[in-house]
């Protein structure tokens, strides 16, 4: 059993890592990866919401009538998202401002509903917990990697600390929307090369 828990956890880090393998939740991926700080903030929010919603969905999976399961899943997810939003507003106000609309939009992020429907509603609590945590951490790693590339080339900084000398001219294409698409595409391409 322990082996399976570990397997469910580890699959989120490479085999099914969102948004590369599990190509879901692209909208926030493109929008919040301008700076590493924002990406990690978003990632942490998703880890929390995904793990909690997976556990709750899995623990009530036998009571929910099939016809209204999606509505119930969304209520669970929305509750945790709102909790995250309030807590972020209270304690890390500047990250809350940077992430803006993308925190409430976690509700409609396909990764969460996808995991609830595809995994948590069919598996036990411990496995669902491992799955949520793994996928969440995988998502955070992807966002951070993407944000690191974009921030380093787009602003010349990493975690707001300058990495190049003063003569560096920022490649501002990277922090604009097209840069996000190109960067994501290149990373997907590299990952597919490794897969083969």
């Amino acid at each position, binding site marked *: 059993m322990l082996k399976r828990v570990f397997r469910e956890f580890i699959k989120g880090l490479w085999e099914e890592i969102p948004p590369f393998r599990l190509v879901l939740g692209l909208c926030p991926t493109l929008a919040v990866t301008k700076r590493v700080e924002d990406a990690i903030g978003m990632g942490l929010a998703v880890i929390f919401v995904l793990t909690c919603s997976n556990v709750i969905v899995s623990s009530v999976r036998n009571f929910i009538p099939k016809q209204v399961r999606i509505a119930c899943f969304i209520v669970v997810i929305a509750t945790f998202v709102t909790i995250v939003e309030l807590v972020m507003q209270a304690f890390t106000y*500047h990250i809350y401002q940077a992430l803006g609309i993308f925190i409430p939009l976690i509700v409609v992020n396909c990764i969460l509903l996808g995991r609830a429907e595809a995994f948590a509603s069919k598996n036990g609590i411990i496995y669902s917990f491992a799955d949520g945590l793994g996928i969440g951490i995988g998502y955070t790693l992807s966002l951070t990697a993407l944000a690191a590339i974009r921030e380093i080339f787009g602003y010349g900084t990493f975690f707001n600390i300058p990495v190049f000398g003063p003569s560096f001219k920022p490649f501002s294409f990277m922090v604009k929307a097209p840069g996000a698409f190109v960067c994501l595409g290149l990373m997907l391409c590299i990952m597919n090369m490794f897969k083969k």
Partner: protein
Amino acid sequence: MRDILKLFLAVTIFSAVSGGLLSLVRSSTRARIEYQQLKFVKGPTLKEIMKGCQNDPITDRFKIKVGKKEETIFVGIFNGQPRAIALEAFGKGFHGPIGVLVGIDVKTNKIIGIGVTTHSETPGVGARVKTDPTFRAQFKGLPITQTFKVKADGGQIDAITGATISSRGVCNAVNNAIALYKKLRPEILKRLKNFKSKTLRS
């Protein structure tokens, strides 16, 4: 029929539990969120108005009910005395209301400083009412007995070039703040008499 009832019950229970949980979280984070919002939205402006005060005016605030609305009064302590207050009022700008925080010395009834908090004026033009220090410095030290107007309206304030409407909006906001202060003065003085700061530094 029984099936429908079951569906109905499931969604109702889920919604009720979630609603209860959220209201709990909301009520326990409310004070903190209010403080954070004040700190990030009004904090920088307030700090500049209350330059040299010995406390944190955001923490040392109180509210007075005016009709249905609550007005927040920020208190600044100078030389150990609650000498200054700041309050916010709005004036109509070019694109919407301009929020202005006005600091008033309660002993001399003079303006100690003003600053724009929220606005939606044109960047680089009207938005300069917030960023231009010489514009807002014009209000400093003036007694609150006068009504503020831009020079184009026969007043005493030099408007920002190309942004007369925004400048007028700021003047109106200051006038509104002063009117509010005059109305609330007895109540404010009463509160300041027994005022205990939570953040006083010597």
